[in-house]
């Protein structure tokens, strides 16, 4: 899966799972400050990412994710390894 595909799937997940508005989602958007996703929402998103992409994201890496783009980075790294 290439980056644009992951980005598109990520956006879909954010809209479907967290109910976010599609036009607010940019790769530089911060989950908590810009998208107002609470801490539980970030956990939910990570679980959805694991299920959707079939990857496992350890807590230490998950804690560092601040923006949408960083979440895509982590998924890309997992998919490539």
């Amino acid at each position, binding site marked *: 899966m290439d980056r644009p595909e992951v980005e598109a799937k990520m956006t879909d997940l954010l809209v479907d799972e967290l109910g976010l508005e599609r036009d607010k989602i940019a790769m530089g958007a911060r989950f908590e400050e810009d998208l107002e996703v*609470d801490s*539980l929402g970030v956990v*939910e998103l990570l679980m*959805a990412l694991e299920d959707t992409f079939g990857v496992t994201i350890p807590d230490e890496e998950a804690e560092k994710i601040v923006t949408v783009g960083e979440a895509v980075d982590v998924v890309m790294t997992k998919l490539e390894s």
Partner: protein
Amino acid sequence: MSRVALVTGGSRGIGRAIATRLGADGARVAVNYRSGKDAADEVVAAISVAGGEAIAVGADVADPDAIAALFDEVSERLGPVEVLVNNAGITADDLVLRMKPEAWDAVIQTNLTAAFHTTKAALRGMLKGRWGRIVNITSVAGIGGNAGQANYSAAKAGLIGLTKSVAKEVASRNITVNAVAPGFIETDMTGALGDEVRDAALPMISMGRFGSPGEVAAAVGYLASEDASYVTGHVLVVDGGLGF
């Protein structure tokens, strides 16, 4: 709507009554047992005869790996757990000065730590489904303590802290987390108490009798239902007016 319910320690006593009640209320029930397979099968049969659906699933909830396998099996056979009842509990009574570390550890592990692991496993599916009920079976001993039961009381009190904390974390996702605190209930656990203990307990109970497992199960049934949709982080005491 037919919810999937998991009752740990559901083969006898209060757990059996809870499993039976949830089955009667229309849930598809996974009756977890540690060693009482025959007893668990009986509970399943009774639920089926009454028109419900149930399965028996063996797992020692003191073992976190067994919990993961338990949830996988229930998910495969019935679906993701929507109602979790953390009922499995043991006692290893002794005065604290004589209590061995193993006795402390074992009771904390089965009665409290197991609930931490099962809660994590269940929340995954409940968050996805945006609906959940977690009911933790604590005890009046967890509220007031009990001489000779420092480990049991500590674990049961711990369950109350767990209940209230998790309730606050997941309330926004339509998941309620509550506890039921039974007093003296007629089960194998209290059946093992000597006559002296029973005779000392009865005068403290306003209703003048021990409770039945069904009376505790009724409280669990309520908390697991839609009727309790605005109740969370609560400890529902079912003790016949103990200590008034």
